[in-house]
């Protein structure tokens, strides 16, 4: 995990790169189409932000990719079809996600949280023994997320921002190369947002990172590409500048032109209701 490769528009790894290809994805709840034929191509090393008004289908899209809700269409991770697979099988294929509300294991220590995240492939015999030494992979995640000094603290006492970083750390040790982050900076202070953005930059070079976000300032500062969803469809896609200049986007999402006033940040999506 070097910092040599920063995320750039369109990805950075050329032909050998990992990718996630979403084709004609549809999710329907009782006749309501939450995701309506979405196509997305995500390359390794592209820090993609997924934005859109409430109810646009952003979280549902992430749910569909990770197997939480049934969907039709195709989601291929480097050629392997994910649709129809069970949640834990998809996770083992290297697709990791976080949730709007940080969901770490509060009664377990930071180290235990990471150890569990790293262990899906462990044999029964390893599981039945105590944790011995800390693997280098976990040490690295502790360092990269800046949680090293808190390793023996229960995750429940972490600050909100630290919990989100722990979640991201868990995705790293899980060996996920597609990371789907659902509003990682909601409720964070300005400094925490900065740090989270830098963290995403550090890890985004070698992975495919998708960030569902409402915070426009955060998006402008860190996104290398943006997809705008509206009513379950892809409305626009491109660099931050391209998307912001798109009149369609301005109309449905950003309100008036040029000003591009951000939406209120910590709004919750209610599209699953």
């Amino acid at each position, binding site marked *: 995990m070097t910092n040599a490769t920063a995320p750039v528009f369109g990805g950075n790894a050329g032909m050998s790169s990992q990718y996630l290809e979403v084709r004609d994805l549809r999710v329907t709840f009782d006749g309501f189409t939450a995701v309506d034929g979405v196509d997305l191509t995500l390359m390794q090393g592209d820090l993609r932000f997924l934005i859109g008004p409430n109810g646009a289908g952003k979280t549902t899209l992430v749910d569909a990719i990770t197997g939480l809700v049934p969907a039709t269409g195709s989601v291929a991770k480097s050629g392997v079809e994910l649709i129809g697979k*069970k949640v*834990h099988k998809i996770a083992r294929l290297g697709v990791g996600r976080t949730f709007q509300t940080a*969901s*770490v294991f509060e*009664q*377990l220590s930071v180290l*235990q949280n990471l150890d569990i995240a790293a262990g899906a492939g462990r044999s029964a015999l390893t*599981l039945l*023994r105590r944790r011995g030494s800390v693997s280098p992979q976990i040490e690295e995640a502790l360092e990269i997320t800046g949680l090293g000094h808190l390793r023996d603290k*229960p995750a429940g006492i972490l600050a909100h921002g630290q919990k989100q970083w722990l979640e991201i750390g868990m995705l790293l040790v899980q060996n996920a190369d597609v990371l789907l982050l659902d509003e990682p900076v909601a409720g964070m202070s300005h400094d925490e947002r900065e740090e989270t953005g830098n963290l995403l930059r550090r890890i985004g070079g070698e992975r495919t990172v998708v960030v569902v976000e409402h915070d426009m300032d955060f998006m402008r500062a860190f996104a290398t590409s943006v997809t705008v969803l509206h009513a379950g469809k892809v409305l626009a896609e491109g660099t931050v500048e391209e998307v912001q200049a798109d009149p369609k986007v301005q109309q449905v999402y950003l309100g008036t032109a040029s000003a591009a006033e951000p939406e209120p940040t910590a709004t919750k999506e209610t599209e699953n209701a």
Partner: protein
Amino acid sequence: MTGMLTRWRPLAGFGLAALVLFGLAPAVLSDFRLNLLGKFLCFAIVAVGIGLAWGRGGMLTLGQGVFFGLGAYMMAMHLKIADAELKGNDVPDFMQIAGISELPGYWTPFTSPFVTILAILVVPALVAFVLGLGVFKRRVKGAYFAILSQALAAAFAILLVGQQTIGGSNGLNRFRTFFGFNLNDPANKRMLFFIAAGVLLLVVALTRQLMYSRYGELLVAVRDQEERVRFLGYDPANIKVVSYVVAAFFAGIAGALFVPIVGIISPADVGIVPSIAFLIGVAIGGRATLLGPVLGAIGVAWAQSTLSENFPSGWIYAQGLLFIVVVGFFPAGVAGLIELIRRRKPRADAPRDETPDALPELEVAR
């Protein structure tokens, strides 16, 4: 230094427990009381399993009577056959009275002591495995799981009542020998107590290993955030099944030991009421701890037998009240109270780091 301490403390604990069970108890208790304690130890063995499955795994096992009963009835069947063989009869005494002259087919495997012991070790665990897979793979959990397991205990008891070939509502009783040992001999009774004590220590040691292993951490994670565990690439059903099977395994062994110690097994010992009674001691002692369930089960059973000697009708109310108070106000049980007091203390002496280290023993119930 603390490393040394934490390494020696469990060993010292086991040593102390062994000393109490194998030295002190037989020295100070009458044969009758010792036998009674042996019965409580059987409940404690069930409790250890419930502590693992419920306290650590979040599965409210309201139907452990089924597995307890399976172990108990299999042992009882073997003892009855062995007694009948000693007397030169083809069938156990109660069958003769009922006019059954031929041993029913499902009894015959239990003619062999080897098969009986093997079945006691395997059948409850196997039943729990099949049941657990079916239930947990379908993501049945919480109250639904509890109701399902309780219904199972009820069905099991009702099934037994209807079967004359297994003693009906009288159950199986009046055992004379235990694998060749005369059960009227106090020395053999004492031996049974020692077996129960030894099994309890083994069961606690095994559970300790499970709780503090990586699996134990994973189990707590599944209890608190089942969905999150799924997204880390695990199937929570498999993790839960292991604890459920272990709990059933323990309950089966406890049932098998209960039979020669108490001398009777009947549907009243395996139905809903005893299944809930198993739980009460665990809740009171502290379900998420290792020793809470053991001490809780023994304590409640002891209180029951002494109080019901003096106030026959009062105990059931006291038990109900105790259960409500503990579940309502002290979900972590007595162990949780002790932990609370222990944490309060140092703060009074010296201001310490406000953020406590994660307890390596995870002595916290949800």
